[in-house]
């Protein structure tokens, strides 16, 4: 996650590197902390965000529309899963969209943060 945020931080660092504010910019280990990331943190209790799952389906790096579609099917019970049905029904469509977008950007082997 820190790796994904790096370009923006680098840009800020470049902006500041010659000015009086340069001292405030340090590479930060901070992860993304948006809604998608915070919801994905809840998924991480079962699904590894580095994709190295065993016995549990991996949810990272999928097309976000496909993932959102799967969640809609869990919500309507068209796709059967006791656990995922409960999870999907507790989220709004907007939350699912943010979550799917975030998870789609994750790559295997990358760790949170």
């Amino acid at each position, binding site marked *: 996650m820190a790796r994904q945020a790096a370009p923006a931080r680098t840009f800020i660092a470049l902006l500041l590197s010659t000015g009086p504010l340069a001292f405030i910019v340090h590479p930060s280990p901070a992860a*993304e902390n*948006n809604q998608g990331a*915070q919801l994905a943190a*809840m998924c991480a*209790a079962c699904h590894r965000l580095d994709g190295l799952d065993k*016995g*549990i389906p991996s949810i990272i790096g999928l097309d976000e529309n496909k993932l959102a579609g799967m969640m809609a099917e869990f919500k309507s019970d068209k796709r059967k899963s006791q*656990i995922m049905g409960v999870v999907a029904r*507790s989220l709004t469509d907007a939350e699912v969209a943010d979550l799917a977008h975030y998870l789609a950007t994750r790559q295997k082997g990358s760790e949170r943060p």
Partner: protein
Amino acid sequence: MNCWTRRQFGCLAGAACLTALAPRVAKAQAKSRVVVIGGGIGGATVAKYLAASAGTIEVMLVEPKPRYTTCFFSSLYLAGMRSFESLTHGYEALAQNYGIKVIHESAVAIDPAGKTVALKSGAKLPYDRLVLAPGIAFKFGAIEGYDEAAAEIMPHAWNGGPQTELLRRQLDSMEDGGLFLIVAPPNPFRCPPGPYERASLVAYYFKQYKPKSKILILDAKDSFFEQDLFQDAWTRHYPGMIEWLPGQFTGGVKSVNVKDLSVKTQGETFKAAVVNFIPAQMAGELAQQAGLADQSGWCPIEPTSFESKLQPGIHIVGDAIQSGEMPKSAFLANSQAKICAFAIAAALTGSDRFAPHLFNTCFTFLAADDAVSDAIALAPNGNTIKISEILISEVGEDAELRRQVVQAANGWYTAFTHDVFG
């Protein structure tokens, strides 16, 4: 992209950012400090997610033990289906990958006014926010004859570690035909299906190696979680081996005698070969000392931040809290810890907050190839936390589905402990 980054960028791109940023700069330079006491599931998760989601916060984790052994899945170890080592996790990754300062010492006192934590060595740790994850304490002395010394003879094994190993040794050395007696605690207690899962898995072990043995559960309660699932499984897998007696039938356990391994109820005395006495519980000791627990013995919290309702600036997560409809489980401790971490990050750094969601899933083994699960979604509702969705496995499910739950359960353990300690 990071919200923090966007905001910083917007400001930096503005013409007058130098002056406007000055207070934030000072704050960033000072670095807020959060001290987390307790390196179990809740504490380790808070520390990890705070360090991961807010790089401007210094996170210290105070935990005396060098390694943590999970209580969940420990009955698989009792049944010979998992190694003790597989249940044990270190803190190295939290220190190395997340920059958390792990201090292997006991916290002995909290000064909420001075915002410091005193360690056993005499050192004091100042904090901006404190998180307590003290777990549970046992009400020793509530039943005549059952105190800490008695627990070395009649183990509770309700904390992972030496107690779990002691109970395993006792079961190993028990002769075939003996009675294994479980005393099940009153509500609320850690892991509602736990005592009955333990009975199931020890029965699985007995069925293979000590088939003449029996299991008796003396319960303080008159019913228990997933009762229909357990009783169905006991009939199918272990006919005649497990007997459960509700509190209303026995009048409850009144005393124990460690000399002859007997347990006395209102009207009867039971002598056993091995006794697993799981006492009544309350919030961990430090929470009691610091005035964070109310008269119920548990800690009341504000449901969107897990900040104590009794001591502002101190947050509590895990089994020590009691709020609304939350059961006490490792899964929920992890879920609470993330909400708590995001709330603290927002308070200290101004990061964004969103509507909290809490989840709980318990995977429960009935036999080696038969497991069930429950799934619960919860959310803050007014001053408390309520269940919004719940589904539980049902009696009569297909055997293949139950085998799939076993596979999912084992995968979950790996992912979950990685989420906490990895």
